[in-house]
C-alpha cells in the first residue's frame, strides 16, 4: 500500500474532474486525480447526450442561478477547447419547434430575455437566437412532422462526443503533469487541521484540498467528509442511437419541451432521447434501461420525425443526470466550498453538465485561489493534444501514406466503422485497457453490428498489446470478462 502526498486531490474522472485537472495543469501545482473505474467518462458523462452547448433552453433558468452563469460562460470556451484537444465539434444549431399560435409565447419570451441578458450574462460572441417561419422550417428540415408552424432557432448549439472530450482532457492533463490514478476508489476521508487523509483501495493520499467531482457519487463522497450540505436526486431518461444510414434525416437538433429531442451526432448517426423531465425516476447508480421509457421515447421521437423507426436503433442507453434538491430549483448546480468543511470543494454540475464543464474548471481555479492556494503559471503548459488518427476520415492519399508508414493501418478490423488495427494499437498506447476503452477512443463495435464481427479480433489485439490472456480482457474492468473459460476447461472441471 502506497502513501502519496499531493496539494489538490480531484476525485472523479468524468467531464468535471478531467476539465478541472486540465485547467489546473496550467499552473505549477501538485495535483492528483483519482478515478475508481478503469477509464474516464464512464459514469454519467457516458450517459449524457451529444449536445455540447445549451443555448436557448437555459434561458428558462433564473439569471441569478449559478448554473446559468456557468452555461453561458462555457459557451464560447468549448470551440477553442476542442480545437486545442484536437477533437471534432460540429455546430449544427437547434430548432425548438412550435406547434401552434399559443406556443409562440415561450420563444418570444426567450428572445426578449436573450436580448436583455446579452452582454450582461451572455458573452457577446454568442450568436442571437431567432424565430423562423414554417416555410424556412420546411426547407431546412423536410423530414420533420408537418404539424409544426415554426421554430426558435439557436445557431450556437453544437455536438461532439462527450467521452472523447473527457479522455482528451485527461490525456492533456496528464501530459502537463497531473498525476492520474485509475482504479483508485476513495473509501474514507478524515479531515485534519489543514490536511485530509484519504483512504483508497490503493493506499492513502494526504492532500490539502479535495475537489469532489464524483458525479453520481458526489453525495457519498461528501458524506465521507461530513460535507454533504446538499440533497441530490438522480433522474433517469432514455436515449438511443440510430444507424448512420438514416443519419441525414435531420440536419439540426430538433426538440420540443415535452417531446425530447432528435439530433445528428458528431459521428453521423441519428440520436434521440426524451427530456429527463422532473419526474424523480431511477435509483442512484442504476443505469439500466426500461421498456416504458424506451416506448415513450420512441413515440416522442416519431412525433418529431415520423421516419424514425425502431428497426434502425443500433444501441440504446440510459440518460442520467444528478439534480440538486427539487425544492430549491432543480436546475441549480453545486459548485463551491462546503459550508461545513473548509477546502472541500464540491463540483456537481447536474444539467447541463458537459457544456458547463470548461467554465466550472475556470471557476475552480478562482475558488482554490480564494481559499489560499497559490497558483503560479506553468510555463511548460502545452494546451495541444495530438489527435487520435481516424482512418475513415482520411483522403485516399493520406490513407496510402499512413499504411506505408505503419501497415497496421491497412488492416481494417471493424467493418461498420472502418477502424484499423493501427488505431486500436494507438488507443491502447494512449491508455485503453478494456473493450469499452478501445470502443470509446476509436469506435470498433459502435456500428450497426455492435462488435459481432470485430469483437473477437479486438479482444485478440487488446490481449496482445496488454500482454494478458484473452480470458482476462474485460468489457469495462472488474469482473466484466467476455470469455471466462478456455476450451475444455469446464469439461476437465467436471471430471
Amino acid at each position: 500500500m502506497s502513501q502519496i502526498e499531493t496539494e489538490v486531490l480531484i476525485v472523479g474522472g468524468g467531464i468535471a474532474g478531467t476539465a478541472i485537472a486540465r485547467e489546473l495543469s496550467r499552473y505549477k501545482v501538485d495535483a492528483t486525480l483519482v478515478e475508481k473505474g478503469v477509464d474516464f467518462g464512464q459514469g454519467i458523462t457516458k450517459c449524457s447526450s451529444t449536445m455540447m452547448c445549451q443555448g436557448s433552453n437555459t434561458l428558462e433558468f433564473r439569471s441569478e442561478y449559478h448554473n446559468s452563469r456557468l452555461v453561458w460562460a462555457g459557451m464560447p470556451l468549448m470551440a477553442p477547447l476542442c480545437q486545442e484537444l484536437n477533437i471534432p465539434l460540429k455546430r449544427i444549431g437547434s430548432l425548438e419547434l412550435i406547434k401552434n399560435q399559443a406556443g409562440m409565447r415561450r420563444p418570444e419570451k426567450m428572445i426578449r430575455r436573450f436580448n436583455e441578458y446579452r452582454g450582461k450574462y451572455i458573452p457577446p460572441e454568442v450568436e442571437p437566437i431567432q424565430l423562423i417561419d414554417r416555410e424556412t422550417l420546411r426547407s431546412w428540415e423536410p423530414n420533420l412532422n408537418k404539424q409544426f408552424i415554426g421554430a426558435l432557432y439557436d445557431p450556437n448549439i453544437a455536438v461532439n462526443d462527450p467521452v472523447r472530450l473527457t479522455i482528451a482532457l485527461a490525456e492533456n492533463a496528464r501530459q502537463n503533469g497531473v498525476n492520474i490514478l485509475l482504479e483508485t476508489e476513495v473509501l474514507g476521508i478524515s479531515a485534519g487541521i489543514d490536511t485530509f487523509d484519504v483512504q483508497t483501495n490503493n493506499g492513502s493520499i494526504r492532500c490539502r484540498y479535495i475537489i469532489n467531482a464524483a458525479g453520481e457519487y458526489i453525495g457519498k463522497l461528501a458524506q465521507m467528509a461530513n460535507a454533504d450540505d446538499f440533497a441530490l436526486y438522480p433522474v433517469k431518461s432514455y436515449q438511443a442511437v440510430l444507424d448512420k444510414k438514416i443519419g441525414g434525416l435531420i440536419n439540426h437538433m430538433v426538440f420540443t419541451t415535452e417531446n425530447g429531442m432528435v439530433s445528428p451526432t458528431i459521428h453521423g448517426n441519428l440520436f434521440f432521447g426524451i427530456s429527463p423531465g422532473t419526474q424523480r425516476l431511477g435509483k442512484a447508480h442504476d443505469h439500466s434501461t426500461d421498456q416504458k421509457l424506451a416506448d415513450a421515447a420512441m413515440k416522442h421521437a416519431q412525433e418529431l420525425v415520423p421516419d424514425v423507426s425502431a428497426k434502425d436503433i443500433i444501441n440504446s442507453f440510459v440518460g442520467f443526470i444528478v439534480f440538486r434538491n427539487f425544492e430549491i430549483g432543480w436546475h441549480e448546480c453545486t459548485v463551491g466550498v462546503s459550508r461545513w468543511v473548509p477546502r472541500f470543494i464540491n463540483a456537481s454540475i447536474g444539467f447541463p453538465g458537459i457544456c458547463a464543464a470548461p467554465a466550472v474548471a475556470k471557476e475552480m481555479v478562482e475558488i482554490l485561489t480564494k481559499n489560499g492556494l497559490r497558483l503560479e503559471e506553468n510555463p511548460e503548459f502545452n494546451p495541444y493534444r495530438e489527435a487520435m488518427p481516424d482512418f475513415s476520415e482520411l483522403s485516399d492519399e493520406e490513407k496510402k501514406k499512413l499504411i506505408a508508414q505503419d501497415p497496421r493501418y491497412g488492416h481494417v478490423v471493424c467493418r461498420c466503422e472502418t477502424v484499423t488495427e493501427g488505431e486500436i494499437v494507438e488507443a491502447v498506447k494512449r491508455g485503453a485497457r478494456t473493450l469499452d476503452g478501445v470502443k470509446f477512443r476509436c469506435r470498433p463495435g459502435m456500428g450497426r453490428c455492435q462488435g459481432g464481427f470485430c469483437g473477437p479480433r479486438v479482444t485478440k489485439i487488446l490481449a496482445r498489446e496488454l500482454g494478458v490472456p484473452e480470458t482476462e480482457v474485460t468489457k469495462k474492468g472488474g469482473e466484466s470478462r467476455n470469455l471466462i473459460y478456455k476450451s475444455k476447461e469446464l469439461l476437465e472441471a467436471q471430471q
Partner: protein
Amino acid sequence: MKLQDVDVAVIGAGPAGMAAAIKAKEAGAENVVIMERAEELGGLLHQCVHNGFGLLYFNQDLTGPEYGHRFIEKVMDTGVKPLLETMVVRLTEDRQIGAVNIREGYITFKPKSIVLAMGCRERSRGALNIPGTRPAGVLTAGTAQRYVNVEGFVPGKKIVILGSGDIGMIMARRLTLEGAHVEAVVEILPYIGGLIRNEVQCLHDFEIPLFLEHTVTRIHGEERVRAVTIAKVDGRRNPIAGTERTIACDTLLLSVGLIPENELSVMAGIRLDPVTGGALVDEMRQTTVSGVFAGGNVLHVHDLVDNVSWESELAGESAAKFALEEKPQKQGEISIKAGTNIRYIVPQTISGQRDVTLYMRVTEPEEMVRIKVGDIMTKGIRAVKPSEMLKIELPAETLKKLKDGTKEIIVDCEKRGGK
C-alpha cells in the same frame, strides 16, 4: 495478373464468393479475383464444425470446414486470385472498387464486372433494444461460435439463448458438449426459427428446455450477466404481466435473425428489397446497377449452404458473361410479386425467356398448401414454414404460357381444398 486487367471481382470469400469465383472462371472469365477481409478463404464455414453441409450439393453429409475445403481447393486449382486480408471500403456506381490491405495499402481498380458476396451479419442486442443493464456476457450466437470453435474459449457456464435460429440451437448443443449448462432457449414465436432437424438434434436430444412464445424482458448484472428475466408473450408479441420468471445465468446468446450486409451495395446506389434486405435482382442475379451481381446471404438469408452455392454460381456465371460481352444487360421486365402468405421471392424480376428457380419464404407456417405462380403453374406442398426456404422451378416452357405484355406475376401460397 494486374488489377487493371481484372474481368470479375468477387467481394467476399465465404461459400457464396468461392462458388461465384469458380463459376466465373469456368464460364470463361480470364482474370478473376476474390477479395476477402479475413486471413483465409472460407468465411464462416470454418467456425461451423457441425455436420449437415452438402447433403444436396454433394449428396454427402459434410461439416462446414469440409464443405469449405472442397471449394477452397477448387478456387486454387482454377486459378482464381485470392486477395486476402483485404477490406473493400468503397464501391461506386461505375464499378470502381477501393480496398485496403497491409501489403499494397490503399488500392483502387475497375473490374469489368463484380459479384457481391459479403454474406450477412447477426442482429445485435442494440437492435433488439432489450431493457436492463449493459454487462459483459451478452453475445450473438455466431460470435460465440467463433470463440468456441476457432479461438478456443467458452464464454460462460450457465447460458440462456434468446431466439431459436439455427446458429442458436447449434450453439446450445455445442456449449453443452463443452460442459456448459444451457438453461433455456427462448423463442418469441409459437414455432422455432430454425430447421426442424436442429430442434431435434440440438435441443430435444440434449434435453434443453425450449420456451416458445416467450422473450427476454430484462438483463441483470452490472459487470457480467447475472440473470435474465423472461416472460410469456401475447398474440401481438407483447410480454404478459405476471408471467415473468428470472433465470440465473452468466451468458445470454442472441440468435434473433440475420441481416444481409449491404453497406457497399448502398454505397454503389444499388436498390434493395425492403423485405429481404438484399439487392433487387433479376434471374441472372444482376442488381439494379449494371454489371454488379449478387449471390448468397448478401441477397437474402438462406438456411442451407447448398442453395447459397448454387445461387452464387449463377451470379458468377452471369458476371463472367457480362465481362466477356461487355455490353449492358437489361434487368428482367416481369416483376415477381409476393401474394398470399408469401414473405418474399428472389429474383424480383425475370425476363420470361429462360428457366428460372424462384427462392421464396412463407410468412406463416401452414399445412397442405398449393403454391400458385400467376395462372401458369401450381404446385402442392405438404407443409411450409418461414424457416424453410422454398424453391419453385419455372421452366422456360411454362413461362411461354404467359400472355404477351405480362408485367407482373403474383405468387400465392393457398391452403388446399379450403374445406
